[in-house]
C-alpha cells in the first residue's frame, strides 16, 4: 500500500471486491431476475388466468369481496391487475400498530368472478425480489447487509474506474483464448459497457434505504419525532383516525374515476382504504408506478370514504424529492416496457458477469503461482469453493426452486415454504459438493447439472401443466413462453460454460510468460 495512488486504489478494488463479491453476485443475479418478477410469478402460478383488463369491474369485485370477508379490518389494499400481473390482489390488516410491521392477509382474486383464485401456493418472483434486498434474514438485518454490500459495490466501482486508466482504449481490446488476460478483458468490457447502469443501480440502492442507514440528518432536524419527517415528505399518509362509529363505505369506482381525471388519465396502481367500516373511512387512490420514471410515493388522491368528498390531491415533488424518486424509479424499472425491460435484464446480467469474472480473476492470478506444486494454500482453496458454490451453486438453486414449483403437489402443506427450502437445500448441497470435489471437476459437474436442470424446464412444464411452449406460443402468452425459452437459453449457456471448462487447455508456459507483462500492466 506504499505505492502510488492507482496501486492503492487497485488494492482496495481487489479486496473489497473479493470479500463482498460472493454476496454481491447473489444480490445482482436475484435482482436481475426481479425485473421479470411478474412474469416469473405467472409461470409459477399458471392457474392465475389473464383476463381482459377492466379496472372498474376489478375494483367492484374487490370491494364486494373485502366487504364480505374483512368488513372490520383496519386497512384494505387493492392492487389492480395490469398487463404484466394478471391477478387482482387484495390485502387487509386487522389492526395497525404504529411502528410495527403489520400482519397482512393477501388473496389473489379472479377479476371476473370475484372468487379467490385456487392457485398453487408459491412466492413466485417475489422470492427473488425479497431475497435481493432482505437476503432471507430477519428484519432489518438483511436490508442492512445488502445496503452495506451496495456501499462496497460503490467503492469497488469507483476504485475500478480509477485503476483502469485506459478506459476507452482497453474497451476495444478483447483478446480471446488468452486465459487470464481474456477474463480481465471481459471483466473490463462488461464493466465499462454498462458503466452508467452500474453507477445508477448501485447509488440508487443506497438512496432507497437511506433513511434506514443514514438517519443522522432526520434525528438532527426532527429530534425524536422522526414520524414528523415522513408525514412532511408523504403528506397523504395523514389520514383521519377511526371514530368508533360504524359507517358505510361508498362505491370506490367513482373515486377511482375522479382520481384518474386529476392525473389527466394516468393509471391507478393501488387503492388503499383506511377503517372501511367506520364513519371516518378514508380512501387513498395511488398512481401506478409504471406511469413515470420519477417515482412519487405520495402521488395520491384522498377521499372521505363515507361522503365521497375529495380531501387532498398531492402536489408536485420538490427537486430533492424528485431526484430521490428518480433514483428509486430507475432502480425498480416499473416504467419499462418490454424492450427496456429486456435491456434492464441484460444490464443486470452484465453486472453479475462483471462480479463473477472479478472473482475468477482474483483466484486465477494467485493460482498461477501454485501450478507446479499442485498444492493450493487453504485460503485459495476457500476462495475456490466459495466461487463455485456462489456462482454455479446459485444457478442450481434457482433451477431447483423452479423444479420444486412444478413437482411439489399442489395440495402439499406449506408448499410455498418448501419451494424456498428447496432453493437453500440445493445451494447447501452445491457448497458441500464444491468442498468435496477438486476445482475444475467441481465447476464442470455443477455447471452441467445446472445446464440439465434449466434445459429440462420447458419439458417439465409441458409434462406437469397444460401451458407448454406449443400452447403458450400459439395463444401469445409471451410471459409463459419467454420463461421457458429463457430457461432453455440459460441451460444452453451453462452447458457451453461446462464444455469450455472441461476442454480448457492451459498452456502453462505461455501463460507464465505473458503473465509477467499483463500483471504489471494491471497492477497499475
Amino acid at each position, binding site marked *: *500500500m*506504499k505505492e502510488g*495512488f492507482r496501486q*492503492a*486504489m487497485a*488494492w*482496495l478494488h*481487489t479486496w473489497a471486491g473479493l470479500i463482498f463479491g460472493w454476496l454481491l453476485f447473489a444480490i445482482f443475479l436475484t435482482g436481475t431476475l426481479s425485473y421479470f418478477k411478474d412474469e416469473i410469478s405467472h409461470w409459477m402460478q399458471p392457474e392465475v388466468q389473464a383476463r381482459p383488463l377492466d379496472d372498474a369491474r376489478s375494483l367492484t369485485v374487490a370491494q364486494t369481496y373485502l366487504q364480505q370477508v374483512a368488513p372490520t379490518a383496519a386497512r384494505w389494499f387493492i392492487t389492480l391487475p395490469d398487463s404484466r400481473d394478471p391477478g387482482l390482489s387484495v390485502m387487509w390488516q386487522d389492526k395497525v400498530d404504529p411502528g410495527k410491521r403489520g400482519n397482512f392477509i393477501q388473496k389473489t382474486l379472479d377479476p371476473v368472478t370475484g372468487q379467490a383464485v385456487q392457485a398453487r401456493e408459491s412466492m413466485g418472483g417475489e422470492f427473488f425480489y425479497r431475497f435481493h434486498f432482505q437476503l432471507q434474514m430477519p428484519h432489518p438485518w438483511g436490508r442492512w447487509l445488502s445496503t452495506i454490500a451496495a*456501499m462496497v459495490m*460503490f*467503492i469497488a466501482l*469507483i*476504485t475500478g474506474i480509477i485503476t483502469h486508466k485506459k478506459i476507452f482504449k482497453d474497451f476495444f481490446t478483447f483478446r480471446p483464448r488468452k486465459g487470464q488476460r481474456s477474463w480481465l478483458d471481459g471483466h473490463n468490457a462488461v464493466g465499462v459497457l454498462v458503466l452508467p447502469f452500474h453507477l445508477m443501480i448501485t*447509488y440508487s440502492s*443506497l*438512496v432507497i434505504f*437511506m*433513511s434506514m442507514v*443514514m438517519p*443522522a*440528518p*432526520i434525528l*438532527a*432536524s*426532527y429530534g425524536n419525532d422522526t414520524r414528523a*419527517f415522513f408525514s*412532511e*415528505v408523504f403528506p397523504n399518509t395523514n389520514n383521519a383516525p377511526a371514530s368508533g362509529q360504524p359507517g358505510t363505505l361508498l362505491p370506490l369506482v367513482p373515486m377511482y374515476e375522479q382520481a384518474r381525471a386529476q392525473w389527466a388519465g394516468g393509471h391507478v396502481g393501488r387503492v388503499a382504504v383506511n377503517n372501511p367500516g367506520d364513519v371516518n373511512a378514508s380512501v387513498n387512490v395511488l398512481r401506478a408506478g409504471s406511469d413515470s420514471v420519477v417515482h412519487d410515493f405520495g402521488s395520491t388522491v384522498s377521499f372521505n370514504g363515507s361522503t365521497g368528498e375529495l380531501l387532498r390531491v398531492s402536489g408536485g415533488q*420538490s*427537486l*430533492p*424529492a424528485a*431526484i*430521490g424518486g428518480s*433514483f428509486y424509479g430507475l432502480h425498480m424499472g416499473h416504467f419499462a416496457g418490454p424492450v427496456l425491460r429486456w435491456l434492464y435484464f441484460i444490464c443486470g446480467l452484465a453486472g453479475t458477469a462483471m462480479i463473477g469474472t472479478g472473482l475468477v480473476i482474483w483466484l486465477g492470478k494467485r493460482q498461477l*503461482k501454485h501450478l507446479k506444486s499442485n498444492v493450493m494454500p487453504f*485460503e485459495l482453496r476457500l476462495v475456490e469453493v466459495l466461487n463455485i458454490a456462489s456462482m454455479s451453486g446459485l444457478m442450481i438453486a434457482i433451477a431447483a426452486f423452479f423444479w420444486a414449483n412444478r413437482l411439489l403437489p399442489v395440495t402439499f402443506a406449506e408448499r410455498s415454504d418448501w419451494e424456498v427450502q428447496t432453493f437453500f437445500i440445493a445451494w447447501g448441497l452445491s457448497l458441500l459438493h464444491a468442498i468435496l470435489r477438486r476445482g475444475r471437476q467441481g465447476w464442470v459437474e455443477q455447471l452441467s447439472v445446472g445446464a440439465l436442470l434449466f434445459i429440462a424446464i420447458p419439458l417439465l412444464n409441458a409434462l406437469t401443466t397444460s401451458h407448454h411452449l406449443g400452447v403458450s406460443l400459439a395463444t401469445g402468452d409471451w410471459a409463459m413462453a419467454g420463461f421457458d425459452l429463457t430457461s432453455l437459453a440459460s441451460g444452453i449457456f451453462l452447458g457451453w460454460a461446462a464444455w469450455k471448462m472441461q476442454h480448457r487447455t492451459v498452456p502453462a508456459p505461455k501463460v507464465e510468460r505473458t503473465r509477467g507483462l499483463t500483471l504489471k500492466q494491471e*497492477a497499475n
Partner: protein
Amino acid sequence: MKSKTSLPVSYRLAVTSRVLAAVVGGYLMASLASICLALWLPTSRADAVITGMMSSFVFYLLAVLWCFACRSAARAWFGVLLPSAAFATLAGVGLWMTRV
C-alpha cells in the same frame, strides 16, 4: 502484491487501522456532513434532510478512498477526523441556532 505470509504484523495492524478509519470514521464523517447539509441548506426542512441523506454516500466514498490512498494509517485517521470535527462544529452551531 507480495505473498501474504511475508507481511509483518505491523503492516497488518496498519491495514486494520485503516479499515477501521474507513468504515467507522468514514461513517461518522458522512453522518456529520449530512447533518450539516440538513441544517444549513436554505430549502425546506424535509428537502434539506433528503439532500443530506442522498449526498452522504459521496462523503463516505471520499473518506474511504482517502483512508487507503494516504501514506500512513495515522494520516488516514487524521484525514477523516479533521473534517468530522469541522462538520461537527458547523452542525453544533446549526443546532444551537435552531434551538434559540
